């Protein structure tokens, strides 16, 4: 049944396409990847886990508000684009460039952001999802720093549309890679920033908290072990998990309280988490993250 649905979807998409051969090939390649996903994979489960992964934008906002300086040298150069020839690399680096774009936007460096917009559009086109990336609107919004809210909104919506589309087309393997790339880049930026600010406990805790996200990402990768590329990346992520096993997160629940202010139910969260992470843990996590990210962007 699944093959039939994929077949019909493929036929419809091919018949609606502009006839560009590279696009057709890219789409067919992505279907081959679907076939390599393990049998009995419950797409609803995968999609539910995918929806949990937080936006890298949250980390960029934290970095900006913690007073850290804009550091474009931490980002993946848009000049690396020609290196990404497989769908695997394209999807991962689409996520990486998405995080880099969010970072430049949050810091108001729109000229740098425009380079990423172009790279994102190229990768998205090659993955046959370029129709969801509204380049003219984003470039127009990026031209004026007063449009930051709208710019963040449109880019977030575009990436949400891409993920939903991939999931609806049973190309969730690409969605997993896209989100993993985005997360990996946010990790890299956070680790590098923490290394420059060794006294910043909040950043160290933020790195520690990523243990929760990594567990979800590894769960996602467990569905694609028959895919050679994803299995290799999973093995690398397992090394990161080994480092994270030394980080302890404890949770204490306490009933929350609430009051209504201006028609909004405002909650006072009385629960707490405590993150036990040492500078040595941070260093180890930073080094492993850097090594994985280097492989991905090379």
């Amino acid at each position, binding site marked *: 049944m699944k093959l039939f649905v994929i077949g019909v979807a493929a036929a419809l998409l091919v018949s609606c396409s502009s006839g560009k051969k590279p696009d057709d090939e890219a789409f067919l390649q992505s279907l081959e990847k679907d076939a390599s996903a393990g049998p009995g994979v419950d797409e609803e489960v995968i999609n539910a886990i995918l*929806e949990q992964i937080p936006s890298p*934008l949250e980390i960029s906002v934290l970095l900006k508000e913690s007073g850290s300086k804009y550091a474009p040298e931490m980002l993946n150069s848009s000049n690396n684009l020609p290196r990404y020839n497989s769908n695997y690399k394209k999807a991962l680096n689409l996520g990486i460039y998405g995080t880099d774009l969010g970072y430049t936007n949050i810091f108001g460096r729109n000229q740098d952001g425009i380079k990423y917009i172009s790279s994102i559009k190229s990768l998205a086109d090659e993955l046959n999802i370029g129709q969801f990336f509204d380049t003219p609107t984003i470039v127009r919004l990026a031209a004026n720093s007063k449009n930051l809210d709208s710019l963040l909104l449109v880019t977030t919506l575009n990436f949400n549309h891409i993920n939903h589309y991939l999931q609806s087309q049973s190309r969730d393997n690409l969605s997993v890679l896209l989100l993993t790339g985005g997360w990996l880049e946010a990790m890299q930026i956070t680790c590098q920033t923490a290394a420059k600010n060794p006294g910043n406990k909040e950043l160290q*805790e933020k790195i520690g908290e990523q243990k929760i*996200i990594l567990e979800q990402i590894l769960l996602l990768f467990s569905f694609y072990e028959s895919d050679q590329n994803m299995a290799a990346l999973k093995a690398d992520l397992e090394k990161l998990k080994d480092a994270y096993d030394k980080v302890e997160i404890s949770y204490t629940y306490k009933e*929350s309280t*609430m009051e209504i202010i201006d028609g909004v*139910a405002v909650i*006072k969260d009385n629960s707490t988490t405590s*993150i036990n992470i040492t500078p040595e843990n941070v260093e180890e996590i930073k080094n492993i993250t850097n090594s994985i990210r280097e492989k991905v962007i090379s």
Partner: protein
Amino acid sequence: MKKLVFALLCLSSLGMSPAPDDQECNSENFATACIPKLATGFNFLKSYKVDGLAKDKVEYSYVFTKGTQYMINLCANGAATDGIVVSIFDKERNKVATSKVNGQFISAIAYPCNATGIYYIQYTFDEPSGHCGGSALGFKR
């Protein structure tokens, strides 16, 4: 400018969606309409379709982070929530927030998170007629 962007998004969303029949819940439109209703200062994260025509509850999950304030709002037919209630549960399934307070249906929850972890965002339906809506999630530091 923001309104113009939304107008374009709404139009494109309508253009891509099939026209609903009377029995259908066009939750996508409600979800899209909810995004600009996030309070000022909140950055949009996700929109959620709340289609309860065939089920008792609709549930999503998201990792909330300590030190970040989240806002979840509700949109349905009319100005009120049409009996739709959004509740937040922690990873142990303790209820940490709800939009139904003393029998009153509130259209938005502000949740300043103090404990990082997976949270479940659950939508339930208190009115027999109201099973269709949308919701948006935003954050600010």
